[in-house]
């Protein structure tokens, strides 16, 4: 067991190193020079002297392998460098912004999960019932309605027409609508997977046998199929949780939340190399962490894996 854990750890480290290499290569392969972009964006002269001075300041005047080695060394020791655009330490920016994105992303998934069980069970039991209709509508709506449009609509209704919330709200209240929107987009995929798992069990012989023995349908469905359906749900949840880091940019922009998503959007346009490199490595680490947690969940839910 310790040997397996060490092997897993080494594998994770290797993947992270490869991610850092890929991050550096991909970001540096992007066309355009961040120094010129930065000067043009603010109406300044992109003369060779100024461009060269910015390159020196940002450490871009070295050979690429040296730049990579220096950046990786700094990154591992906690110096993630400074943003070209904001001039602020990137680690500080991530530390401040990541919680905002996590609150929105995980808050949305949590709220979605609260609704998944009742809707999926109802839809599995009565394929033409109200729960199934609501679930199908939510799934279709999440695919068809852009998050920014929904966000603007909700803001207009609650802030302008009813005046019960602030557009520029402060404190925990500002997270409610963004979380509900993320929940809305996540609800359909999660509930459909859970529903499919329950529906499959409800067609199984052992479930019919349970009913024939006089078991209550609701109790029997949960007892016979709950664990199996949650196994599928955990896989779907893994996929949804994977994009929490940086994937909530649209909602963040509409609601003015200073999360990682908005920072990332700005950074891409300005070719903010160190921000983008840091993000890719953090995203890779996040995916590994999620995969690790998901593997643990599967281990608990699926006796065949023990």
């Amino acid at each position, binding site marked *: 067991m310790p040997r397996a854990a060490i092997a897993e750890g080494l594998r994770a480290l290797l993947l992270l190193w490869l991610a850092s290499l890929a991050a550096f290569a991909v970001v540096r392969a992007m066309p355009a020079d961040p120094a010129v972009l930065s000067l043009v964006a603010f109406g300044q002269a992109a003369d060779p002297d100024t461009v060269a001075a910015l390159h020196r300041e940002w450490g871009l005047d070295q050979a690429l392998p040296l730049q990579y080695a220096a950046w990786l060394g700094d990154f591992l020791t906690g110096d993630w460098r400074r943003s070209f655009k904001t001039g602020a330490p990137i680690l500080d920016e991530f530390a401040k912004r990541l919680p905002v994105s996590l609150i929105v992303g995980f808050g949305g998934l949590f709220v979605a999960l*609260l609704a998944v069980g009742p809707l999926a069970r109802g839809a599995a039991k009565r394929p033409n019932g109200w729960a199934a209709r609501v679930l199908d509508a939510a799934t279709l709506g999440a695919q068809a309605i852009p998050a920014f449009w929904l966000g603007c609509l909700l803001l207009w209704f609650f802030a302008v027409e009813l005046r019960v919330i602030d557009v520029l709200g402060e404190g925990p209240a500002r997270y409610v609508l963004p979380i509900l929107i993320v929940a809305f987009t996540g609800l359909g995929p999660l509930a459909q997977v859970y529903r499919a798992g329950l529906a499959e069990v409800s067609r199984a012989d052992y479930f019919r046998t349970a009913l024939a023995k006089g078991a209550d349908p609701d109790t029997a469905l949960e007892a016979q199929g709950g664990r199996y359906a949650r196994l599928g749900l955990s896989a779907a949840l893994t996929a949804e949780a994977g994009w929490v880091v940086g994937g909530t940019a649209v909602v963040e922009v509409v609601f003015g939340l200073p999360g990682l998503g908005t920072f990332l959007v700005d950074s891409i346009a300005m070719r903010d190399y160190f921000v983008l490199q840091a993000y890719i490595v953090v995203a890779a680490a996040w995916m590994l962490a999620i995969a690790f947690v998901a593997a643990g969940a599967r281990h608990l839910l699926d006796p065949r894996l023990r």
Partner: protein
Amino acid sequence: MQFRILAAAAALALTAVPADAQTRPLVVGQGFLTDSLDPAQGVAGWALQSHGVAETLFTVDREGRIVPNLAESVRRDGESFIIRLKPDLKFADGSLLDATALKASLDRATKENPRARGQIGTPALDVLNARELRLRPERPVAAIESVLAEFPLAIHKFDGTNASMTGPFRAVEFKRGESLRLEPNPFYRDVASRPAVTIRRIGDAQTLALGLESGEVDIAFNLAPETLPRLKRRPELTIKSTPVAYQYMALLNTQRAPFDDVKVRQAVDLAIDRSMLIAAANGGETATGMFPRVFPFASESPRKHDAREAEKLLDDAGWKAGANGQRMKDGRALEFTLTTYPQRPDLVTIAPVIRASLERIGFRVRIEVTEAISPQLQAKRYDAALWAMHAAPGGDGAFVFEQYLRSTSATNFMSFASAPVDAALDRLREIDAAPARAAALKGIEQLVFAQAPVVYLMTPVWHVGLSKRAASYVPYPSDYYVLRADLRASP
């Protein structure tokens, strides 16, 4: 249980009631916010100047003229310049802005910020007396007033931790990426008449309009045109629209077909009906050239629209119209991709109108919207691109010509090379007097018109939405000075 948690979350949303509109500071909603309170860092000087916190020695007035601000005057003294400060200037911490403090500010700016060195290199600075400083730039400078109006040279005093500036407002609380709370600078004239202000960064145009409608925003800067009809129906709001110092244009890649042919470029220039662009953008003025009419060196005549002449040019260039109206030459269709970007919503709005004008004379135009246009321009991976820019940020027109049209410039995105234009720009470097510079700029403009690497489209109007409290606000023709000393709030 699960539904109870959902209900609790909804109830939490209902607890946030808007603050008392009478007691809160004026709230300005806009798409940008400074990244730092130190004007020597990056481009913070620009944002702080726009926020009314930082000032420069010279500034650009409403008519586009460079006028003294903190400086009383500047005069040439051989290869140096003598800057004379206005009397009794103070920083927001109450300390005196004298020649020694000015030297310290310019020293620090050029040491800390490569952008400042891009203006005057590392200059030699000598204090002559309490109000006069001799500045000798590292390299020759023609229009020194314009350089001293540039944001990297914003005047400040740095105590090792904080920077103090001279504008009508000073920062009280800063939340990076979110908001900046300002109070009137107590050492600036008429301090009692200015309100406290909170600037909120609002990245989405629709959210900005909603903030104005909900009463949370008092000054909504640069509203999207599509929100105007809705906002104008609200009697409590005032919408003020003003032509700005920005110019909308189409850059043509002269290294790519079909724009490697000057006649095709001229045809595009003639074929576009600018009045339709203005109608689509909900306001604006037909461009006369590179510079909006607010500038004294702008050309006078609006760009001409003549579709027949455009067709003749295309005929002469060998592009013949087929039965379906599509022009062909040597088996190739007359077609290109028009690239635009969503950060300037007006440009996305006018792109189809441009396409309609050009397809009427036989072009086939694809429209492409890209999130990051600057990298694409820099890599020259485009056929034609819509572009918006401030035409004279320092109040002098030479800058944009040098940057965009000199054959050797890194930002000559059109790959335009013209020996006469380069020579005229060389001569312009030797001219000091404003009238002579204006005449020279107009001459260069004519050379550029003939080659048409750029098609000047329109001067936009920007729309500012105002609550009753801020109804007296008068927009400036650019985003360089959003908050100024004349800001007042009604009770």
